């Protein structure tokens, strides 16, 4: 598989949110405004790339040689949480404006299952290091894309006459379902 195929696959065909249904919590929670959706998306993309690289190293230099694949989940969660913490401290010191923009979202990313999913899938597909990083980039951009799409529609929805029982999360889930169906159209592209 070429790098481009991997990128396209993670971005559109196997979009983490809309096709694999991972990371639904931030997808619903942070998709009310396009601005914050972009912030969350970029922060997640960043963490995904870093986490993909870190977990690849853990998998092939610690877990496999010592015959400990059953510790995969635990060690991956450990490394992702530490990475996020480190990135947060680093940003706070070096770029206060970026920290302010991403501030609330960074800690939330620790518990985003899309990142753990990405790490595990990268291992299952036995990607090389470069491929894993590209996979992480594609997954993050796909997450950002899904978030911005939903946020854009939800911003418009503020002025729509929605039936009372569907207001709020109800209509958002219907929208997400429709978006997911639309993304089904990418199947077969790769």
């Amino acid at each position, binding site marked *: 598989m070429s790098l481009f195929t991997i990128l396209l696959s993670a971005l559109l065909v196997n979009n983490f949110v809309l096709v694999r249904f991972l990371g639904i919590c931030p997808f619903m929670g942070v998709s009310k405004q396009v601005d914050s959706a972009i912030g969350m998306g970029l922060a997640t993309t960043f963490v995904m790339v870093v986490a993909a690289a870190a977990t690849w190293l*853990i998998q092939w230099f*610690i877990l496999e040689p*010592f*015959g*400990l694949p059953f*510790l995969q989940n*635990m*060690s991956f969660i*450990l*490394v992702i949480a*530490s990475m996020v*913490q*480190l990135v947060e*401290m*680093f940003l*706070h*010191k*070096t770029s*206060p404006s970026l920290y302010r923009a991403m501030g609330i979202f960074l800690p939330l990313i620790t518990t985003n299952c899309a990142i753990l999913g990405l790490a595990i899938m990268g291992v299952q597909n036995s990607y090389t290091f470069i491929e894993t990083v590209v996979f992480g980039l594609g997954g993050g951009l796909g997450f950002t894309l899904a978030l911005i799409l939903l946020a854009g529609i939800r911003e418009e929805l503020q*002025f*729509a*006459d929605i039936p009372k029982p569907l207001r709020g999360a109800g209509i958002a889930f219907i929208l997400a379902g429709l978006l997911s169906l639309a993304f089904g159209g990418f199947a077969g592209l790769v």
Partner: protein
Amino acid sequence: MNTTIISLVSMGSMAALFALGLAVASKKFAVETDPRVEEIESVLPGVNCGACGFAGCNNFAEGVASGKAPVNGCPVGGLSVAKMVASIMGVEADGPKRRVAQVLCKGGHAEAKQRGGYDGPKDCRIAHATQGGDKACSYGCLGYGSCVASCEFNAMYMDENGLPVVIEENCTACGKCVDACPRDIIVLVDEEQGVHIRCRSLLTGRFVRQVCSVGCIACQRCVKVCPTGAIYMEDNLARIDYDKCINCRECVAVCPMNTIDWQEGKALLEKVAVG
């Protein structure tokens, strides 16, 4: 047995390595913050409503610690929170004067005339921006309840007459309804004030009478009768200066249109004339 030991050692050393890394990083990337910020934030209500003028409780706490915000600046927390914040900052505090929202329009379905229909979305801002709703008065309440929808404290409801009513006990003066109203009908006023001129129409008397039975016709009787000079005319509308009004109700008695309202249960005020 062997696997157990390997797992324990590898996971343990990984965890120790990360912990060490984070510990070093936290020292290296330490950012000096005022410890009082955290303390202040812990005593604030934490609703992040923005009523203080800052973008959330954390920003307000930073503002207080750096001297940009007053210790009693949180209208939701009131006196009790102001005292706690003041003790953290080491100063004395008076509670903020409690303010509540007042709706300055009495023209509900019964009083205000209709002019044609309106089928658009039931939202005041949209109605105002498109064809101005279905009421003939272009200054009055549109009656679609955008203010009520914006209230996060259950302090407003729409009555049968199609006007918003403020439940003063629940109102925190956060100002969301003030922003939501496209016609600037809602204002925040000190809670003790009981006399309100409930009209925003700048039309002259003749035209007010054509569209509404409770609008201000600019007859100036209230201006003449006010003992403290608190009422003045501006653009065909009587306006009240709350700094001077003492709740004497003279104006309420003479208003021919019944525009000026007295809220039962509020006391006569003593005010020192300024200027």
